[in-house]
């Protein structure tokens, strides 16, 4: 069984998007700064593969995941990647109510809870890991104790304002175990195993 891995790029002061993020501005004002460790991209998602070895290691792991879970907010912002984040793996979206119009591709809205969503995604991914993206969903997964690994790209910048990755998790601390740290020119790739009490 694979693990559920959160992949997020975060500023040193904890932000994952600039201020004023929305559908027309998914990264928030100047939020692109957090994603400069990726390549230039272009038409093809694989075009974002970084040039350095550390960045490539992380990127390749992310692209080898067998399913994606994204929050509805994040998903809406990015149009569910037109239904294909990478390799056509299924995209699971935990939500209270499925939308009237379905996005293209293999996007599955799960309305019976985060645990069910994670279980379905893991079943779909088989031996491969599941990639999680989105701040609110990450918090929800931590509370439900179903998030296994945090893969944080720590970016050397202070944003000052914007959307935080960890907001309102609530007290009761959660221990992490650092399993890897890799340096890229513009990012420190930190990987932690979540160790629930």
């Amino acid at each position, binding site marked *: 069984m694979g693990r559920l891995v959160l992949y997020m790029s975060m500023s040193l002061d904890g932000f994952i998007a600039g201020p004023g993020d929305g559908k027309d501005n998914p990264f928030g004002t100047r939020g692109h700064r957090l994603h400069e460790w990726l390549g230039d991209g272009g038409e093809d998602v694989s075009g974002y593969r970084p040039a350095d070895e550390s960045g490539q290691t992380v990127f390749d792991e992310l692209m080898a995941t067998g399913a994606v879970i994204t929050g509805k907010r994040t998903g809406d912002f990015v149009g569910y990647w037109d239904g294909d984040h990478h390799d056509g793996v299924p995209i699971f979206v935990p939500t209270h109510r499925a939308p009237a119009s379905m996005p293209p591709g293999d996007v599955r809205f799960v309305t019976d809870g985060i645990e069910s969503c994670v279980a379905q995604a893991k079943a779909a991914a088989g031996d491969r890991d599941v990639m999680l993206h989105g701040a609110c969903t990450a918090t929800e997964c931590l509370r439900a104790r179903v998030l296994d690994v945090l893969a944080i790209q720590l970016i050397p910048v202070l944003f000052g*304002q914007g959307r935080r990755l960890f907001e309102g998790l609530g*007290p009761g601390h959660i221990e992490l175990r650092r399993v890897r740290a890799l340096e890229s020119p513009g990012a420190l790739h930190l990987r932690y195993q979540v160790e629930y009490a």
Partner: protein
Amino acid sequence: MNPPIRLSMSMSLDGFIAGPDDRAGQELGRDGGRLFNWMDDRMSDGPSGQVFRELMATGAVISGRRTFELAGRWQGDHHDGVPIFVLTHRIDDTDVPPGSARFITDAEDCAEQARAAAGDRAVMVHGAGAAQALVRAGLLDEMEIHLVPVLLGGGRRLFDALPPDHIELELVRRLEARDVTHLRYRVRHDGPRP
């Protein structure tokens, strides 16, 4: 290059430097002591020992008022009797701080005096308030974050009162040790990126 004015703070991965409800009698907040487990190794020959010795070799301390009070004013001596400059909004002339501590209201003045007092040694900055005041004024040269592998879930944040202007940093040193990653960043004063 002049010796740096360098922030030193232990921080959880979710950005907290103290647990919830930090106050006199519970200075680190609930569960906040978790952030300082790495200090158990402060006398070691390893990286945490090295970091601690560097802190103790600084030639002046800049602290925020809140931190200073919660720390019991360090009885006037943070280490080796070096001068302590306490950034505060208001000075009460009847309240004379103990030992080598003095109150000061202006960040620029504070940085200048601390630098002069430290001579060829670095200046240590402690406290979220002082840190942010110095960052806003463009006076902080480096920040050493002792990043602790824990999510505290609540408490006092290191960074919560900065304007939305990006401040670019450069990772200049990373030391891995038990219960902590010591990350030293240089603050880039060469202006915002294009």
